[in-house]
């Protein structure tokens, strides 16, 4: 009998129908294992409660009313309940859940789009290939309890994510969940689903599209607003989904068009384009979208999904740049031309009859875009179309400024625009050049100006000199961190020579310009932290050069080893950063990963000195990623705009009993130092952020070598940037061996002043620390993992 997928009727049997869903070949069995495979909303609630008991949700609501339903809007101030009975705390937690769901939905829908498309193209049986790893899909294994072998194995994974997201979305409806803590538990669930959705998206594209597979020495890609030869036709792809750009790149490759057409990406599509074809280039993050379009350099804009400005069509239309939308999620009201002949579409766009087109046939997109660019490019260049003013107009515009400061009030970064206008009147453009770096390109200033100065255009015009020189390098996204690299690095982590692993991720909504990211990353690299980056942050890190003209990517190698700088890839490659902590638990502690989220997260929280930094996080996606990392035990720091996410997870060191952990060896309770102190927190300035991230790398299991080095950097960063010793450094000292070696004696004197007892003869601390160092101490927050409990 031949068994195949589908349903068939066996002849001769009376009214029997057998449906077979899937055939699994020998050796490919995906056996579902673990204590909590495919966790439902409630399955990991105990773990959530454990972390929420220590890391308190702190709310900073931007609105104290609720207007979700027709009872409202309801005033929730002063502990008032709304018409449905919800209070402000629960409503704020509900907002957090909603935000996390949106973010998770974005990445998972991206994954779903790719999965359907790649299965159509490569078949369900296309094998997963991510490089040299035993754990090929760590998040999938830890959450789903199974090991996927083919891309088709991800079908049930996304089905699970989609089902869970529907359940979670349902709980937001009026008259559903009412307790803040359970909204937060659900938000943590959504965050975890987000990590899973991202992992699926990136693993399948790596496996099918030949993107780098855990490679340490990927080539460099060019980045910046000044890298393209604008005399050639310019194609710019905007968004996050490689499916359409891949066809364009293939077509250009086949027809040898890379010399004739410039092609680059804005936002994460750019990363994935370079991963797919190293000839592609990167303009920059979402902050560059409006700026670059206004420059008039793009001749064709191709949009897909996520982080694409809502006004792209409107802006492009003014400059006669056709917009091709390629994804159902962003269609801009454009006519669906998926079934029309390419030449007819090109004619309609070149003649200006239509401003753009929706084309969901990606093969057609691949053929259309180069043709369109070749035709419309010369026409646009001849007309010299740009939104930027000429020199005379520029002078007229800057002198119009009345210094009313309305633009500064509306600016997300409160930039001193009128000062720059005044300086420009007297011919000094340097202030505008500075603004160009700090400006996130949102365009709100255009609307706020009462005398109708197109402020963004003025900034960009004034910054032409620096824009021409805006040419950096980014090491192309490497995908996962391979097991062998982690094994090699294990020694440094244990011997304390690597003080921690820092993920620099997220978007470009920086409080004080992209340069901050560069500065911080450089400082932490010099201190031997491992820096792993992805998405827009990975781009911005590559935008600046030292005095020898080298970017950080050129100065620091890309291996997972101390003092190295890694780029995993696009937004969905974030998953690999979180997944690396799972690998650590599996490789060094032999922890079972399948369906074992709680135990793994407990290991990460107590042992793995990793923290995330989303300095410019703006989107719901970034919030979802952070929340997912939190559930995995990884603390995250956001920039000051992160307060607008309205929720943080703050630890309170002064509540001593909240810092009890169990020793898994015997189940005894040990009061430990607050490590890590917070799970989700914002910092105001980079000066405040640096010591904070150093501190968030402390873990209860640190041996003395590790603690001493972590403490060294915590103290030094505080002294260097905040000009003072941290207030709480001594809390982290368990014995003299924990003290930074270069300052041991001075610090012991300070401890003595605090009332600690020092045996100066033996140079030992005899009294003072909260607890003793014990390298064999096995901290856990999960009672069932203790030896006594197992018996």
């Amino acid at each position, binding site marked *: 009998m031949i068994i195949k997928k589908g349903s068939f009727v066996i002849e001769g049997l009376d009214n029997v129908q057998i449906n077979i869903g899937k055939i699994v070949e020998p050796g490919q069995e995906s056996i579902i294992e673990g204590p909590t495979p495919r966790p439902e909303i409630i399955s990991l609630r105990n773990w959530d409660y454990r972390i929420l008991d220590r890391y308190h949700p702190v709310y900073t609501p931007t609105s104290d009313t609720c207007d979700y339903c027709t009872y409202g809007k309801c005033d929730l101030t002063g502990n008032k309940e709304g018409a449905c009975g919800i209070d402000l705390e629960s409503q704020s937690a509900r907002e957090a859940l909603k935000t996390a769901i949106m973010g998770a939905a974005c990445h998972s829908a991206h994954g779903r789009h790719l999965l359907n498309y790649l299965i159509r193209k490569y078949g369900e049986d296309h094998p997963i290939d991510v490089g040299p790893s035993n754990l090929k899909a760590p998040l999938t294994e830890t959450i789903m309890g199974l090991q996927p072998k083919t891309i088709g194995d991800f079908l049930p994974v996304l089905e699970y994510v989609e089902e869970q997201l529907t359940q979670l979305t349902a709980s937001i409806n009026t008259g559903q969940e009412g307790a803040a803590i359970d909204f937060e538990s659900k938000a943590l669930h959504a965050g975890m689903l987000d990590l899973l959705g991202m992992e699926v998206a990136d693993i399948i594209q790596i496996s099918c599209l030949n993107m780098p597979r855990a490679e340490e020495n990927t080539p460099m890609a060019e980045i910046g607003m000044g890298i393209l030869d604008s005399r050639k036709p310019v194609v710019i792809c905007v968004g996050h989904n490689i499916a359409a750009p891949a066809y364009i790149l293939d077509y250009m490759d086949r027809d040898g068009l890379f010399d004739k057409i410039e092609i680059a990406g804005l936002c994460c599509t750019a990363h994935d384009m370079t991963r797919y074809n190293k000839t592609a280039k990167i303009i920059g993050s979402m902050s560059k979208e409006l700026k670059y379009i206004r420059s008039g350099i793009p001749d064709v804009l191709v949009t897909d999904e996520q982080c694409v400005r809502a006004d792209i069509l409107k802006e492009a239309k003014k400059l006669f740049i056709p917009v091709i939308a390629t994804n159902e999620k962003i269609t801009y009201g454009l006519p669906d031309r998926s079934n029309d002949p390419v030449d007819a579409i090109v004619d309609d766009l070149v003649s200006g009859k239509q401003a753009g087109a929706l084309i969901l046939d990606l093969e057609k997109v691949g053929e259309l875009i180069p043709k369109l660019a070749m035709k419309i490019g010369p026409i646009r260049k001849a007309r010299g179309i740009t939104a930027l003013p000429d020199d005379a107009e520029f002078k007229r515009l800057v002198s119009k400024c009345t210094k009313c400061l309305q633009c500064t009030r509306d600016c997300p970064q409160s930039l001193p625009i009128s000062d720059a206008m005044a300086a420009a009147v007297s011919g000094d453009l340097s202030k505008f050049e500075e603004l160009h770096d700090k400006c996130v390109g949102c365009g709100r200033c255009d609307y706020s100006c009462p005398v109708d100065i197109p402020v963004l255009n003025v900034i960009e015009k004034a910054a032409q000199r620096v824009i021409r020189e805006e040419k950096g390098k980014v090491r192309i996204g490497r995908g996962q961190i391979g097991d062998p690299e982690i094994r090699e690095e294990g020694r440094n982590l244990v*011997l304390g020579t690597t003080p921690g692993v820092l993920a620099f991720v997220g978007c470009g909504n920086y409080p004080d310009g992209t340069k901050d990211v560069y500065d911080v990353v450089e400082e932490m690299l010099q201190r031997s932290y491992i820096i792993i980056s992805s998405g827009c942050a990975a781009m911005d890190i590559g935008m600046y050069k030292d005095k020898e003209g080298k970017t950080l990517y050129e100065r620091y190698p890309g291996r997972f080893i101390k003092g190295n700088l890694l780029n995993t890839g696009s937004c969905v490659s974030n998953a690999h950063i979180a997944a690396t902590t799972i690998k650590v638990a599996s*490789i060094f502690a032999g922890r079972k990963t399948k369906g074992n989220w709680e135990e793994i997260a407990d290991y990460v929280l107590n042992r793995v000195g990793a923290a995330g930094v989303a300095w410019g996080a703006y989107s719901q996606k970034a919030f979802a990623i952070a929340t997912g990392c939190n559930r995995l035990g990884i603390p995250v720091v956001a920039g000051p705009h992160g307060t607008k996410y309205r929720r943080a997870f703050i630890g309170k060191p002064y509540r001593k009993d909240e810092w009890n952990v169990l020793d898994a060896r015997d189940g005894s309770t040990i009061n430990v130092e607050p490590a890590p102190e917070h799970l989700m927190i914002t910092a105001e300035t980079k000066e405040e952020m640096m010591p904070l991230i150093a501190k968030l790398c402390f873990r209860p299991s640190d041996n003395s070598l590790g603690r001493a080095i972590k403490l060294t950097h915590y103290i030094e960063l505080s002294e260097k940037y905040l000009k003072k010793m941290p207030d709480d450094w001594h809390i982290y000292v368990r014995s003299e061996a924990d003290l930074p*070696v270069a300052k041991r004696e001075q610090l012991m004197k300070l401890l003595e002043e605090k009332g600690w007892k020092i045996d100066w003869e033996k140079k030992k601390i005899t009294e003072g620390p909260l607890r003793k160092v014990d390298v064999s101490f096995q901290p856990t927050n999960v009672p069932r993992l203790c030896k006594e409990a197992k018996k």
Partner: protein
Amino acid sequence: MANEFPFEISPMFEGERVRKDDMFVELAGPKSRGFELVKAAGLDEIEDGRFTLIGPDISQMQEGSRHPYAMIYRIAGKLVEPDLEAIVERRNHDFQNYIQGYMHLNQRYDVWVRINKDAIKKGLKSFEQIAKATMMLFKNELPFIEKIEAIYVTEPEEVEKQRAEAIKIYEARDARTRGLHDEDVDVFYGCTLCQSFAPTNVCVVTPDRISLCGAINWFDGRAAAKVDPEGPQFAIPKGEIIDEKGGEYSGVNEKAVALSGGEYSRIKIHSFFEYPHTSCGCFEVVGFYVPEVDGIGWVDRDFSGNAPNGLAFSTMAGQTGGGKQIIGFLGVGVNYFRSPKFIQADGGWNRVVWMPKNLREKIKADIPQELVDKLPTEEDVSDLKSLKDYLEKKQHPVTKLWKKEEASAEAESSDGDASQAGAPAWSVPAPAMNLPAGMPMMPPMQLGGGEGVKIVLKNAKITIDRIVLKGKEK
């Protein structure tokens, strides 16, 4: 915090390089001569903190010039002994690199130092400042040093003279290290540093077995145990010898129980098959049993292909680590290949049947000469069949075991001699158990609808979510 030195001292400056253009002065290095040396001395022979300079000081040197450079430290303390000299000496490199604007490369007579111009601008003018900072760090980090003094030499003839002496000392030390074996000492050292990540792992460090990560040798363990006897590195009295060849000692077993939290109770330090040493995860090489040829293959981290058993390093390593005693796989550091007791319980080198070419090249000098050519690499064999043929053709010593095996199989009784190399190998079922998917080993299973089975169904509607086919023959 107040700083008595005109420079910052921090691990942050470890990776700092001083380029030629930024350099004020170059000391020792490939174009000059120098060395560093630590010597133990009696407590009354040393004036703590004293600094002596023979030759010109920094302030007397010209910008851009090059000079010979020797750094000699004399240390004393109740616990100081000559065996610790090398360990202390190696730290000079770490500590001096903490000094901002001061680059220290290499060790012993290869040292190479540069001082950058910024350091001079900030107030560095004498070697005394460097020496004082270094001595402070030595004493802070290694409290068994009760007294320390430094003698720096920049006078060319004096450097030459002292260097000849130093080389003799290095040679004598190396001879002692090489000549020191497990049987020569009463104590081994345990290292639990990595328990912060690998909770049940215990590394036993002996003269013939460096720690798995390669970072801690017997002398390091000894030094660390002196700094803090209750710290992560501690003495393990050998106790009684239980199995000399396998390297099993009662003292080690007792510690194993205590430190692994009862996970295991016996360790044979030089055994692959019986109670092997645990691995944390950092191991550079993983050994794997190949039942088809009754030998052991080794694959290193840098080899990205598949071993003859069809598995890659990362797959096998995935079976090995996590501080667990796994039979059939063993993680080791590259240095263990240099041990004269290398898996001696299982026949040592005679049992080694495969390794990647690069690894073989790296350790060629330590492989018994007559075996080098009999040891195939990925260039010689690609699968189990070609491995077997190769070993047979080259008359690899492991082939002798095959004959023995055949013979004993006929006799159908085991000889019972556990110390006999290879004898228990076939009887260990665990390796096969641990082999991951991809190895044909499951018995073929008949699936529903197979021949000879009659099924009668009436009014049934069957929905199968999925069918898992196990062991279908291809």
